[in-house]
């Protein structure tokens, strides 16, 4: 099975985030970056499928030059080769044009399965994989918890709301967007890191793929969420306080 994993490099989860002078993006000067969390699980799912059924795992990432460190990590974990759509101004691409970019890069690969993360930890639109599937004319399923190859297709488990799951059988080729935490991520071993140095990373640009940045959605401003914590003291006899508390929990906090 040939599996393509689209993965994105995002600011590390425990970074101290500062907003840059434009007010529209993060100050990247002393940020560290990592593989987007659900994408790491997508990669792991791909590597496990390859271990079970053989084939090839190809990593596809669009991003600036620094994204190569995320690609190297994926190669060190066991991906066979990578395609890096090297693009500095990725912020000018909205989700649709980004999906066009990825679909253009993916199309010549003719993969049996394309995996992406459910959403990215930075922008979180949750659309890239789905639009990509549409552009490629492939069936897709989202919020995937498990993938099993069965016959000519795959059987997947989707997460629904409130602890419900859906099991779907679908034909290949297909696109799946993977949920975080579905498997146990492997470490990049030192031998893997060494071996990754010799693996192929093909560089492409948006111009070569014939995709223009488009922006049907524009990002006006980003800001730190405001702290809205407030403390209320309830007065009265214990029984009255308890009654007020229940009232608030029911109608204000809506937790009971």
């Amino acid at each position, binding site marked *: 099975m040939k599996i393509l994993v689209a993965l994105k490099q995002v600011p590390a989860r*425990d970074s101290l985030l500062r907003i840059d002078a434009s007010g529209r993006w993060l100050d990247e000067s002393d940020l560290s970056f990592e593989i987007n969390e659900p994408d790491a699980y997508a990669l792991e799912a791909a590597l496990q499928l390859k271990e079970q059924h053989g084939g090839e795992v190809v990593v596809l990432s669009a991003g600036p030059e620094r994204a190569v460190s995320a690609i*190297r990590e994926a190669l060190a974990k066991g991906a066979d080769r990578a395609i890096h759509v090297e693009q500095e101004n990725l912020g000018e691409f909205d989700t649709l044009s980004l999906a066009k970019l990825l679909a253009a890069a993916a199309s010549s690969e003719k993969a049996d399965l394309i995996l992406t993360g459910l959403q990215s930890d930075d922008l979180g639109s949750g659309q890239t994989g789905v639009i990509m599937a549409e552009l490629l004319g492939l069936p897709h399923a989202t919020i995937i918890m498990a993938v099993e190859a069965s016959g000519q297709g795959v059987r997947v488990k989707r997460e629904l709301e409130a602890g419900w799951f859906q099991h779907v059988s679908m034909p290949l080729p297909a696109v799946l967007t993977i949920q975080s935490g579905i498997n146990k991520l492997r*470490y990049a071993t*030192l031998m893997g*890191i*060494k071996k990754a140095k010799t693996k192929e990373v093909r560089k492409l640009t948006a111009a070569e793929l014939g995709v223009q940045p488009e922006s049907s959605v524009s990002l006006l401003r980003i800001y730190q969420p405001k702290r809205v914590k407030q403390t209320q003291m309830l007065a009265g006899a214990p029984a009255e306080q308890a009654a007020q508390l229940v009232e608030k929990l029911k109608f204000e906090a809506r937790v009971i």
Partner: protein
Amino acid sequence: MPSFRGVDYLHIDSLLNDDEKLVRQTTRQFVEDRVVPVIKDCYNQGRFPAELIPEMGEMGFFGANLDGYGCAGMSNVEYGLIMQELERGDSGLRSLVSVQGALVMYPILTYGSEEQRKRYLPKLAKGEMIGCFGLTEPGYGSNPAGMTTTATRDGDSWVLNGEKTWITNGTVADVAVVWARTPEGVRGFLVEKGTPGYKTSDIHGKLSMRASVTSSLSFSDCRISECHRLPEAQGLKSALGCLSQARFGIGWGVLGAAMDCFETARQYTMVRKQFDDRPIASHQLVQEKLAWMVTEITKGQLLAIQCGRLKDARKLDFAHISMLKRNNVAMALECARLSRDLLGGNGIIDDYPIMRHMCNLETVKTYEGTDHIHTLVIGERVTGIPAYK
């Protein structure tokens, strides 16, 4: 407490390439997941976490900077970063890896026969075999040149007699690299567990390195064949060559312990409040200690990186390594003591890693050449006058 993020005051990361950072990250993650959750109990119970050995082998930690025979072939800077992250977990774990890689695999690779390399290195790299290094004796620590363990030739075999002590991994080792005196000078031998006349026993009552095994080895008419001698090891300088490898790793490793202490103290002093409901970090005397620590850690990082780059360029010699080992170990120990102080009473309990690091670092100051001995090496380098005797 949030997971460990290292210390980088001076954009030291800009001196590292992507692969070096990835090596550090993957080791850090391993330590966070596999070591941090168990190490406190291991230390308290004086238990060596042997269950981690196969996983560490799979990660490639053993003999990571050696090439071939199943070793990972990392650069020396990458190797140093691995040591840093492991010792952030615990000096005892780093000791296990140092001994295996620098004191057992390195001499087999450097002084061993092809047959010996093939027999031992792949298994040592995977952690399927554990090794130990026997140089120190009850009467000869800082001055190994006085060793009294002897190897006498008898036809096609050698007969070993004597005692080694303070040997890391001794009782768990499948193979011991043993240094003994022969009429032609000091020679190195590979003694396998179970060889008649070879016995090991653990040293009990340690208040330092409690998650690491430390043992005595005794040889009483222990007969081994000539093919168990390291053919290219000639004289004490071959043993010292191994120590240079290990000391290089120690100079990096202790940075991890120092960083862990500093970060623990920094975070603690920012939340602990005394006097007028102000965090103790807002007091000048506290800041002075934090400023001292972060400055010394940064200087230690620069020293380690320069030594690593020199080693990769094959320009690092033993007197450079003495500076790295001596400075960084003393610095780390001082960071542990200052951090302990900043945590007040909490500094002495095992909810925090500081006291464990501090106790471990007392060993690190002594082994692999004491602070004094490295002072004398540096003194000799700058004056030309040896002052050991």
